[in-house]
């Protein structure tokens, strides 16, 4: 009975100690890895925001107080904004982003490999990509709306086109940067064009392609609001655009924060996918 008690106690003790050690370990990790700098910078911005609105230094139309943004967040999450809840808005936007991103990968990576390995392919496609890449998305969008209408296809097309060049250019770069010795070695072992692509080009260019994918996703993200301006009725970008018309700046700021956080999350997911599917990159990149 007593020993049992003791055992429980010592067990409890050890759990407490272990927890404390873990907490200390986490703290130490945060300190030594320099993560506290990131925490500090975010905390500074949040504190500044709070103080500025607390002391009434900013007009609430332009900078609403943090608590009103939180309240708005809760309200949009539970009641919704103009017919859709926050999750539905996020879902609509994520659907558009992901479809466009997948299409950009499906088209961009093979095209990039082709352009990186064949000089003629490079000559054929390069001028087209270089021409439309710097076009401002809204200029392009006007034309897309004329061609494809005000529905979903013009929005997806705009997002797709803004994501495509990043992937293609990164893929070309990745393929041309591969150490020629690898290619020679593979060729001397009798590898054909397809085997080369499968065994040398793709694995060797994986990390750079992944970077291209991350850049491309970022580009798609930046164009989201523009894509949802015309005739949308849901989506985070639309919510930001619509609420600005009604001067609901708390919804605007809340929407931007949600957009930023989901963007960071998707970038992290891409990084993790990279680590899982390309284990050989783990050494090179953290």
């Amino acid at each position: 009975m007593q020993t049992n008690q003791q055992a429980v106690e010592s067990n409890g003790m050890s759990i407490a100690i272990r927890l404390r050690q873990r907490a200390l370990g986490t703290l130490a990790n945060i300190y030594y890895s320099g993560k506290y700098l990131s925490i500090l910078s975010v905390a500074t911005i949040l504190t500044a925001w709070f103080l500025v609105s607390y002391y009434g230094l900013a007009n609430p139309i332009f900078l609403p107080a943090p608590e009103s943004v939180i309240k708005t967040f809760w309200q949009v999450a539970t009641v919704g904004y103009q017919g859709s809840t926050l999750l539905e808005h996020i879902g609509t936007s994520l659907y558009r982003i992901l479809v466009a991103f997948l299409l950009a990968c499906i088209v961009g990576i093979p095209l990039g490999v082709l352009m990186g390995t064949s000089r003629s392919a490079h000559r054929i496609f390069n001028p087209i990509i270089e021409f439309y890449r710097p076009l401002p998305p809204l200029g392009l969008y006007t034309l897309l709306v004329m061609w494809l209408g005000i529905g979903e296809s013009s929005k997806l097309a705009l997002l797709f086109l803004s994501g495509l060049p990043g992937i293609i250019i990164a893929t070309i770069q990745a393929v041309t940067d591969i150490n020629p010795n690898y290619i020679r070695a593979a060729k001397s072992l009798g590898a054909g064009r397809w085997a080369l692509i499968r065994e040398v080009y793709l694995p060797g260019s994986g990390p750079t392609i992944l970077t291209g994918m991350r850049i491309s996703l970022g580009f798609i993200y930046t164009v989201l609001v523009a894509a949802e301006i015309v005739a949308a009725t849901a989506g985070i970008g639309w919510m930001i655009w619509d609420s600005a018309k009604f001067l609901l700046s708390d919804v605007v700021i809340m929407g931007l924060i949600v957009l930023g956080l989901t963007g960071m999350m998707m970038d992290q997911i891409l990084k993790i996918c990279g680590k899982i599917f390309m284990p050989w990159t783990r050494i090179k990149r953290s």
Partner: protein
Amino acid sequence: MKKLILSSIGMWAGLSIFSAGAFADKPEEVTVGYLNLVNAQLVTKSLGLVQKEMPGVKINYIKVGGGGDMLRAIAGNQVDFGGLGNPPTAIGVTRGLPIQGIMVLNMLDFVESMVVRTSKNIKKLEDLKGKTIAAPFGSTTHYLLMTALADEGIDPASMKIIDLRPNDIALAWARGDIDAAWFWEPALGAVLKDDAHLFMTSGLMAARGYPTWDVGVVMNDFAEKYPDYVNKFVTAECKGIDFWIENPAETAQIIATELGLALEDAARMMKGTEMVPCAKQLTDQYIGTTEKNGQFVDTLIATSEFLFSQKRLPLVAERSVFEDFIDPSYLETVVQQ
């Protein structure tokens, strides 16, 4: 670091001297944001009447697509004078934008109308169910569309109502993407020739007790610094309104040139909107006088209540907020002259 602080203090001092200089009696430039629709502001602009009242001041005109964009321009302090329909005015005033309403720009009749696709056989509002209808959100016409539906007890969720600007409506109409739209001239005229007819007008809604209008506004900062220049602006706009009323033929010519329209289209559009002579604007039907505000205040309150019910406004402001917003004093000075 010290250098940076010193230089920023220097800059700040320089700026304050500069702005003290600008405090003199004359602004360097005046920016007028005007709505892309048919009213006497086009006459004022074309005849350079504001410039004539303000010699030596640079006058900038910025064309703004609709009320929502105008609100953004005002919130961003990009204009000195602007024009707003009653729904954006209700939004801006409730949200505390630093503006004052100084005159009536126009009363809206069939210059703002709902067109329907003739081949879709839409005879009554009920027939819009399941169709796609466009309106610029936050504007007068969006407000009237939602009001008309609410009046007949039709659920807006039973149709697809989308946000498009007038020019985009014309584009979407040509492609066949939409079945009905409530918007305004000049884009309206382009649509009317293509399987379309007028179904409802803003004038009909005014007769039902939902008047819509555009009011001229000035930024508070500007009005405090240069009250004389607000008078000058109102004088110029009043002259434009008088010109519109007295010279319809020449006005049509001006509008046709300004908007790049055929003369007969310009003449038709002109009839769809009413210009109110400045002396008449001081009566109870419009903005009223400093002692007693006119019915514009009632319209603003009714509009706010509706927008609140649509969850477009967080609250309905007190009557006094709207009374403070409307400032007939400039108009009174100008009319007395």
